[in-house]
């Protein structure tokens, strides 16, 4: 039976392994025909949503991998606004509002509030948490 899944990522790409696990889990769920209702990035997890990372070429690029998976599977990748602002993750509008000289939100991500996580908890059949 195909289900609707919500994913919560509470950890950045270089803290430990949670973002990697969440990514592989999301990919496997899509391959099995499940719907990913939303991936919500909270706390240090918002660091998955910057397009300014340049890891070595022979290293995995998790931020890029999320963006590519989002484009391919039409994923809704949501970054928590309060967590993002603390960590310097800004979209064009937020960068302008705070007088910053650039924005860095990666393609496929959008900035929104905690209500999006609550909604995922209500609407999705299962909510799976990945963190440290």
């Amino acid at each position: 039976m195909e289900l609707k899944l919500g994913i919560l990522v509470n950890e950045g790409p270089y803290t430990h392994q949670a973002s990697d696990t969440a990514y592989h889990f999301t990919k496997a769920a899509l391959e099995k025909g499940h719907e990913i209702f939303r991936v919500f990035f909270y706390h240090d997890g918002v660091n998955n949503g910057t397009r300014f990372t340049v890891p070595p070429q022979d290293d995995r690029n998790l931020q890029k991998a999320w963006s590519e998976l989002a484009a391919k599977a039409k994923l809704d990748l949501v970054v928590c606004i309060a967590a993002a602002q603390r960590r310097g993750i800004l979209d064009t509008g937020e960068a302008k509002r705070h007088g910053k000289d650039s924005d860095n939100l990666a393609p496929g991500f959008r900035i929104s509030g905690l209500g999006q996580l609550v909604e995922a908890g209500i609407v999705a059949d299962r909510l799976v948490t990945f963190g440290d």
Partner: protein
Amino acid sequence: MPTLHTINKSPFERSSFASALNHLLPGDALLMIEDGVVGARKSSAFAGRLEAAAKTCRVYVLGPDLAARGIAEKDVVAGATLVDYGGFVDLVTGHDRTQAWL
């Protein structure tokens, strides 16, 4: 209403693994992922507790994380089943909820 419990920390690093075992109900499932797979190693000081849990609950280990840490399948406690990421997804959808012990 069975619950899937995911554990991602070694029992020798944090108390979350032991805490999870204390909260397991009969019929629940336990999945060791990330550093949690260290707890699956047989003959360790922790193995007895996991083997006891395996009598009333199903116990799973994420194979790729086990391999990444150099733990061979033959060194895993009796009663634990290896799964891949697809198996992880099946465990999530096959249980009413997933509790992540972080």
